[in-house]
């Protein structure tokens, strides 16, 4: 949906305005992420109730995964998903939105896969707690590299 909205925004908002907004927001968000202290996020600060899982073998886990996976009900430690959505709307289109959405789903799926691959999950959780600031920094830098690689900034700057 963001990709479709992005196509409309791209057509309506002048390029100079989009460039200024994209550069300002990317610098502000990435700088804070790289510092290990992200901005306050627009988020729904609620946990997914455990009783949802008990609503059946398929329906319960599906609803739990949907709500937590999409961030509808969760505590978000990073503003990168918000930045991604912002970029899809302001600099992307339908294809970019679909690619970003598929990547986001893959990234979310990587979390339980990586945790499951650890010999002891409690160790993985403890390590994540210890290194979460570094994970944010590495993610922010990787995000910027991917943004530059998308050539979207080149296109915006004309």
């Amino acid at each position, binding site marked *: 949906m963001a990709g479709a909205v992005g196509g409309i925004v791209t057509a309506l908002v002048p390029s100079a305005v989009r460039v200024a907004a994209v550069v300002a927001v990317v610098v502000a968000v990435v700088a804070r992420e790289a510092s290990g202290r992200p901005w306050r996020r627009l988020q729904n600060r609620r946990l997914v109730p455990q009783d949802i899982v008990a609503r059946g073998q398929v329906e319960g886990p599906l609803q739990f995964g949907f709500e937590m996976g999409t*961030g509808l009900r*969760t505590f978000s430690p990073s503003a990168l998903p918000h930045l991604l959505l912002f970029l899809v709307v302001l600099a992307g289109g339908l294809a970019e939105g679909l690619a970003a959405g598929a990547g986001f789903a*893959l990234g979310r799926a990587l979390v339980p896969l*990586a945790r499951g691959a650890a*010999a002891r999950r409690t160790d993985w959780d403890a390590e994540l707690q210890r290194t*979460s600031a570094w994970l944010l920094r590495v*993610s922010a830098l990787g995000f910027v590299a*991917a943004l530059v690689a998308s050539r979207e900034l080149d296109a915006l700057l004309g």
Partner: protein
Amino acid sequence: MTPVARPVVPAVVTGLASVALLLVDVAPLAWLLMGVTAGYALSGSV
């Protein structure tokens, strides 16, 4: 914990893949990697 099993490893691998993409022109893959990075950055979400 073995170094390869550390939580930061997928983020590093994704970051390196993004850097490698700077050398080629595959824009949709870059958007995919932006998504992967943003999704994995939520590792600590509860």
